[in-house]
């Protein structure tokens, strides 16, 4: 089965990019949508960009290399908390945003290496259990180390980045107020810019020696070793990169939110949601991952609250009827969508060529096979 026609006919990426850049600059569309829905779509898109970085990191581990990682949220959290510790006034460090971004990416990657080095020898399901366990351990550690992490309250306030002075005139020219708390578009473009850098990096990696080694390991580890691939090192590199990107997303998340949020923002549900994003979109596919994040996080953060607002405003529900609150149906719709996906399009909406081949490979001719 090949991708349906309407997916093939989707226009090229420059168009999407132009829309994403134009949308906030035109001001008007966002304001109309805000008046209509009560939600700043632009502000929510910022979070979608951040989750896209997180999902792309997870995709390196799960999609490219084929290691089931069930604890990506932990590395997202490590990134957020390292940023918190390095920047909040309660600590003496007070480093700038760029330094915090680099250090939290590095810290999450290091945590990934420390976890991966002894455990990636394990096969398949066992690694999944290890990452699942690590995710929970991290969450409880963040909650219980109150002296360091402020427990369930989280660390705040995380200060916004310092805007270089030379950027102010051009920003004003575009109609953007150079104040992070007054104009959402600063964070919007920061997140979009970082996302583009990550996409560019991964796009190049896909066709590199390392990228091919990841995919060979996903296909067959023994055969990959027979080709001269150092399987444990290659797997570890995927793990480090994936966890590092998660840490980068975490840093951005804490900066945009001005807080690390509580430990529960980095729980198992977050990990599974991210996994759902890449499965829905198409494992191992860049475009697919981005589409999956847009659909699932968009549904969660935009569509569900908007519908709630409509239902309330229309007077159908007085607000205390549980069945008439759309958000309460959210998980059911979510589950239903995933079941239908698995039944009708298991390779995801925009699959990578190889994964699609696997899902729809006819059996080899029988007279010659064992």
């Amino acid at each position, binding site marked *: 089965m090949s991708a349906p026609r309407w997916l093939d006919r989707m226009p090229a990426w420059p168009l999407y990019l132009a829309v994403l850049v134009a949308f906030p600059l035109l001001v008007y569309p966002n304001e109309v949508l805000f008046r209509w829905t009560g939600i700043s779509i632009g502000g929510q898109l910022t979070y979608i960009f951040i989750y896209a970085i997180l999902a792309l990191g997870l995709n390196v581990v799960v999609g490219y290399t084929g290691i089931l990682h069930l604890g990506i949220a932990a590395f997202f959290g490590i990134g957020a908390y390292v940023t918190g510790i390095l920047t909040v006034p309660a600590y003496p460090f007070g480093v700038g945003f760029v330094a915090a971004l680099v250090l939290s990416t590095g810290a999450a990657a290091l945590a990934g290496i420390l976890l991966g080095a002894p455990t990636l020898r394990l096969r398949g399901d066992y690694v999944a259990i290890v990452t699942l366990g690590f995710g929970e351990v991290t969450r409880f550690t963040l909650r219980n180390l109150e002296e360091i992490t402020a427990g369930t309250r989280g660390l705040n306030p995380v200060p916004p980045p310092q805007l270089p002075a030379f950027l102010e005139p051009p920003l004003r020219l575009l109609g953007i107020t150079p104040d992070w708390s007054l104009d959402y578009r600063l964070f919007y473009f920061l997140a979009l810019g970082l996302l583009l850098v990550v996409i560019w990096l991964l796009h190049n990696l896909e066709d590199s*020696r390392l990228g*091919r*080694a990841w*995919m*060979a390991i996903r*296909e*067959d580890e*023994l*055969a*990959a*070793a*027979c*080709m*001269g*691939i*150092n*399987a444990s090192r290659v797997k570890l590199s995927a793990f480090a990169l994936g966890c590092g990107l998660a840490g980068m997303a975490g840093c951005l998340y804490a900066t945009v939110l001005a807080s690390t949020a509580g430990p529960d923002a980095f729980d198992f549900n977050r990990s599974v949601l991210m996994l759902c994003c890449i499965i829905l979109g198409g494992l191992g596919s860049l475009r697919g991952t981005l589409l999956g994040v847009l659909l699932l996080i968009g549904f969660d953060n935009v569509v569900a609250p908007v519908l709630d607002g409509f239902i309330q405003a229309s007077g159908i529900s007085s607000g205390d009827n549980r069945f008439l609150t759309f958000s309460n149906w959210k998980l059911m719709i979510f589950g239903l969508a995933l079941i239908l996906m698995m039944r009708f399009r298991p390779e995801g909406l925009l699959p990578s060529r*190889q*994964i699609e*081949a*696997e899902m729809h*490979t*006819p059996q*080899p*001719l029988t*007279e*010659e*096979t*064992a």
Partner: protein
Amino acid sequence: MPPLLEVDDVYAGYGPIEVLKGISLTVDTGEIVALIGANGAGKTSTLLSISGCLPARRGSMRLAGQEIHALPAHEIVHRGICHSPEGRKIFPRLTVLENLQMGAFSRRDKPGIERDLAHAFELFPILAERKHQAGGTLSGGEQQMLAVARAMMGRPKLLLLDEPSLGLAPMIVLKIFEVVRKLNDEGISILLVEQAARMALKLAHRGYVMEMGQITIAGTAAELLTDKRVQDAYLGE
């Protein structure tokens, strides 16, 4: 001059189970050596152990005089041993071309790789036809050809072939063996594990018989073909 491959009293196994109990064998430059024996004798484990996928617990292995038994698998590939594992183990979702390119993963000489790619398609024209097809969609025989061609892409000094005849029609096996001989004529030494003992011994210069993790009979292919014990147990006469 030392033999190309020298395996000396190697022990290896899985967990508490010892599968190889003191294997010794040699492969000289330019030779085809057949390793025959019943199911579970340890033939596949011997190859896995030589290519570093199953670490030897005791004993030593040398490639052209240099010790290799302590090296990890990917290092051994770089030293010039390519392994075409049992059950073919091609990459099912990669195309035929990509599978062959993976075979050259340890090399960085682009023009050389291009030349060998052309050569592989010359040896197996069917693979050229199926160049952009996913490996998993090939027939069993074509997959085996792909596995051999892929191993060849590493430009090995020594090629380890594990049961190339597995599950294939005799016609196809003959075709594959023909290519194995061609590769050998081009200077690649080959260690061939086979259940199809007669065909293997007709192709090989020398042979070893394995039983219960040990080499029990060794000799030239002609000797083994006429050996009463071999005939009774493996040649089915």
